[in-house]
């Protein structure tokens, strides 16, 4: 192989020589052959260097053919008319080859090896991933960490081993940031079907990567925004939502390829930051939509490796965020109500803790407080009241601190009932009045329907209230029963002593 390429170069060199010889007369229009030769020599050197950049392995061969050809050139020198005559014939092809040569040189300096060139977005993505593994961008990732990470890409182990070999330039078993970017890029390319190179391409060399991309500036910026968003996401719900929006905006700058991955991102953020707030779910679909629309723009520019990055993203998600504490109590005490309550009790009630015994009379007496409480907790009551109006069974689906919402639910239910009672009562006479005033069948039926619906709602709510009371009383009964059993046991323990 090496000999062949040498041969090519050997053949190529004479044409280059001719090219230079041909061009010099055009440029200089000198007749002195020796000066021409000197110029050629001078011009030859940069050609050699330029060409040798492309084929570094054949550098050693260059002086030899040139030396061999010097006598040739010199012999041709006197016959200046010959080259001059040949010049126009060769010129076109030689200029073409020369321009190709120059293009190659330029391309060499510009590195248009498309598969091996890291774009800005990819670079940011890789840096982001690096940071997820190792917060300090100037430090390195250990071998085992990197191994686990790259294994997620689902390439075969020998291939991964080879990629590591290529990218770990100093063979220290750890990856610095440029090494990591190179390795990642190789994996991405391999996933997209590009064969792995024999040696590390120049665009992926660590020194090139460090030089090409000014790291410190935007790394710090990204790092700051990241660190800002992280603690911010720990705050209360409302601010949580706000911060989520900012996180997602910041994330929008990252080259997240598809909506699915951003969905994963947002979910990951949610799972880590949220404490199971299903209320946010109604608002969250809005936020991902906004962020996805933001991401739609960079997506058009992104590299074609969307599928691999998707796969990588999915693989790199933190291992299944803890399942959202579902409709059941999140901060509940260790008491497992499912076991406490008999199966006969409807399952919908299982999510409730029994309020303190003082509570049962409250629904009757606390109607005066409802208005105040409802005003003080407009948000929470809104949702429960909405849920109450929709269907009472769904009230249990709130994963809020059980005691408070129960109380509020009571109040709000009662408030709702209260609201609906006057409305119903208003509706009743109004319906009657309207029925009498306007004896049209349709209006009567509609009013009656409304009345029936309100009555149904009232009954359902009352039903729910009574069911809750029932459950609470049953709970109390069980506790008392257990106390009784304990006392009986104590009594029996004491008895044998007296008997014996």
């Amino acid at each position: 192989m090496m000999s062949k390429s040498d041969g090519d170069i050997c053949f190529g060199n004479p044409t280059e020589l001719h090219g230079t010889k041909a061009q010099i007369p055009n440029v200089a229009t000198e007749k002195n052959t020796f000066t021409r030769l000197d110029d050629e020599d001078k011009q030859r050197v940069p050609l050699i260097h330029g060409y040798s950049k492309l084929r570094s392995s054949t550098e050693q061969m260059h002086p030899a053919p040139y030396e061999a050809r010097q006598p040739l050139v010199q012999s041709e020198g006197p016959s200046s008319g010959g080259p001059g005559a040949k010049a126009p014939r060769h010129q076109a092809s030689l200029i073409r080859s020369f321009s190709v040569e120059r293009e190659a040189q330029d391309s060499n300096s510009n590195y248009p090896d498309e598969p091996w060139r890291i774009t800005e977005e990819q670079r940011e993505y890789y840096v982001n991933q690096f940071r997820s593994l190792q917060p300090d961008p100037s430090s390195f990732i250990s071998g085992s960490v990197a191994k686990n990470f790259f294994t997620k890409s689902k390439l075969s182990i020998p291939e991964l081993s080879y990629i590591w070999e290529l990218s770990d330039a100093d063979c220290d078993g750890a990856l610095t940031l440029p090494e990591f970017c190179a390795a990642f890029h190789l994996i991405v390319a391999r996933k997209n079907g590009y064969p792995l190179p024999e040696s590390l391409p120049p665009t992926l060399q660590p020194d090139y990567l460090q030089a090409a991309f000014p790291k410190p500036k935007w790394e710090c910026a990204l790092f700051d925004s990241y660190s800002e968003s992280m603690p911010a996401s720990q705050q209360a719900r409302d601010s949580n939502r706000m911060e989520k929006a900012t996180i997602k905006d910041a994330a929008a700058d990252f080259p997240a390829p598809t909506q699915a991955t951003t969905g994963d991102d947002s979910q990951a953020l949610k799972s880590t930051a949220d404490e199971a707030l299903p209320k946010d779910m109604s608002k969250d679909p809005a936020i991902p939509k906004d962020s996805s629309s933001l991401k739609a723009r960079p997506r058009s520019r992104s590299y074609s490796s969307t599928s691999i990055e998707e796969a990588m993203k999915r693989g790199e998600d933190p291992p299944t965020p803890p399942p959202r504490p579902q409709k059941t109590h999140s901060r509940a005490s260790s008491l497992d109500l499912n076991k406490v309550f008999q199966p006969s009790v409807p399952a919908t009630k299982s999510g409730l803790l029994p309020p303190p015994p003082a509570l049962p009379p409250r629904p009757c007496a606390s109607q005066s407080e409802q208005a105040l409480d409802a005003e003080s907790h407009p948000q929470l009551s809104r949702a429960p009241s909405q849920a109450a109006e929709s269907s009472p069974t769904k009230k249990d689906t709130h994963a809020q601190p059980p005691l408070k919402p129960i109380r509020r639910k009571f109040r709000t239910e009662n408030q709702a009932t209260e609201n609906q009672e006057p409305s119903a009562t208003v509706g009743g006479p109004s319906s009657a009045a309207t029925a009498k005033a306007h004896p049209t069948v349709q209006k009567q039926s509609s009013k009656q329907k409304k009345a029936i619906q309100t009555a149904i709602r009232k009954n359902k709510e009352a039903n729910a209230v009574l069911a809750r009371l029932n459950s609470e009383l049953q709970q109390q009964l069980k506790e008392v029963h257990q106390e009784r059993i304990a006392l009986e046991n104590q009594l029996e323990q004491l008895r044998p002593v007296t008997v014996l």
Partner: protein
Amino acid sequence: MAVCVAVIAKENYPLYIRSVPTESELKFHYMVHTSLDVVDEKISAMGKALVDQRELYLGLLYPTEDYKVYGYVTNSKVKFVMVVDSSNTALRDNEIRSMFRKLHNSYTDVMCNPFYNPGDRIQSRAFDSMVTTMMIQVC
């Protein structure tokens, strides 16, 4: 001038063995295998001696009519065995040592790769190329 290079694991199975494909490789494999006994002998003879560079290199294990076999053992009891052609001008000891040193360095590079499990066959291309240079250099 190695005609055959072999890396043997601690448990005496080959991790890497490569010979110049001019002759039957089986002969070389056999020579390497028999040389392991000599290696073990030398290791046990050392006993509790200090382990330094010199003792990693075992020197000529045994000469045959055509070939000489050299040995080298690492601290983790991984053995390198090299078979050289006797007909070539006798290689100096230093050259053999330097070749073993290169082998050892390449081997550690292979070990540094986290995707390499110790005990697997060595499939690293860098290692291959290094061995190739050694063998070609010799030939």
